[in-house]
């Protein structure tokens, strides 16, 4: 059983997920007020401008906060054991949900503020899932 996959058509987030097929982490910037727009959407949520552009993140950032999930009844996660869910602050200034992977023990090895970089997990649906591992 795969994880829940992004579902389409969903025009706001489709460019983000298309880019993941090339292992590119994309985000929007408002061309009027220069602020970062994330999650992706039709307009700038700061100033209301309809002009935004896509940029590619370096995929590096820090753990803003996290939790280690011990119980998830979804079949994709039920048998995974404890896993870390986190909000990651990317260096370009956007915050996204993800998992911290590549640690021996998520309960003790994940810390707020720890530096992480993106690690791609290709999905059968065709997209790739951005996860994060210690940098």
């Amino acid at each position, binding site marked *: 059983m795969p*994880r*829940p*996959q*992004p*579902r*389409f*058509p*969903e025009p*706001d*987030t489709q460019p*983000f*997920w298309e880019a993941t097929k090339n292992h590119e982490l994309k985000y929007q910037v408002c061309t009027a007020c220069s602020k*970062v727009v*994330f*999650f*992706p*959407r039709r307009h700038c949520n700061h100033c209301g401008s309809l002009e935004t552009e896509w940029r590619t993140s370096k995929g590096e950032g820090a753990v*803003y*906060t*996290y*939790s*280690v*999930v*011990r*119980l*998830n*009844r*979804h079949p*994709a*996660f*039920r048998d*995974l054991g404890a*896993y870390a*869910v*986190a*909000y990651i*602050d990317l260096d370009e*200034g*956007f*915050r*996204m*949900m*993800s*998992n911290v992977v590549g640690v021996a023990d998520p*309960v003790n090895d994940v810390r*707020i*503020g720890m530096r992480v970089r993106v690690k791609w997990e290709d999905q059968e649906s065709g997209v790739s*899932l951005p996860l994060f591992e210690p940098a």
Partner: protein
Amino acid sequence: MVSQRRDAAIVGIHEYPLRKAPGVTPLQIKAESAARALADAGLSWKDVDGLYDAQDGAGMSGLSLSEYFGFKPNVLDTTAVGGSSYEFQAAHAHRAIAAGKCRVALLTYGSTAASGMVHIGTGGRESAGAPSPQGNMTEAWGATLIANYAMVAHRHMHQYGTTSEHLARISVATRAHAMRNPQAVKGMTDLLFENIREITVDDVLNSRMVADPLHLLDCCMVSDGGGAVVIASPEVARDCKQKPVWIIGTGEATKYVENDGDITVSAAVQSAPPAFGEAGVHPGEIDIAMIYDSFTITVLCLLEDLGFCKKGEGGQFVSEDRLHFQSKLRPHINTDGGGLSSNHPGMRGIFLLIEAARQLRGQSTSQVEGAKLAVAHGNGGQLGGTHTGGTIILARD
């Protein structure tokens, strides 16, 4: 205290007594609760001219309920913003009555979340409905609802040194109140709780971890249940059976994840100031704080954001002699046993209004002597993600 307006009052309440109600529908719970809350007020079915629905029944929100109940209301409000829907609806009813648009507003809730085996906090369901940008940017990573709150707790601990012991104190006080509430005790029994008794901080810390740093006893239950609240104009309230519980201040707000935001700060920082301002009271004057306790961390953050203490000082605040109904210091919280230990069918906001009204009438199973002022603050959605905050200040004559 400044002079307060008396535009609308809670005059009738009912809490559906069962936490496990197989074979009953949410609509039936709503209808039964409506009839009993109107009887509590001394009003009749035909007096209702304002109908409030949080889309918890069946069919088209508000419209189907109107037909099922047999009402043709002059005011129809279908605000559905999660657990705080009833604080939002109470605010809207207060305004509608003050404007003369209706005289008797009815709020109802019904849920069979427990009998329906709805695992609200621990996932397991594929998302339904049309794809959404929010869904596409969250669902793949397996964050359960509990994990969302747990991420707030971790960040609060990181920023302020808050501990699991601090959080546990909230659960301990709430269970003490539940043990005095026969419906809560029966509910925990029917829901197959183990060791139904007063609990200690160690009990909370020793209960199994569900999503770090939240233990099982930091989490609310999933129950069936529901209830109803009748809000009326001063003219109607004067002739009701029960003493009026006046709505003297209201506030509404939203909050969501922002790129540079602070996840420990809730919508209450926006909803509380207008509510307290309108009421002309300060948090320090509040006797009863009915605070949405989906999780212990919810209460800690909301106490801070409502202004009971400074941001980050919640851990110290709950460690002093307060929360319990017999504590020396105010506020006394969740005296019915809360979502942690009495009932949580999914949208607990209506029970905050009901228990606050009981306290100001003098009818609680953990009655605070001389309680005069209460706040009911609902939090809807998810504290560490998209959520609402609804603040209602209540006063007796």
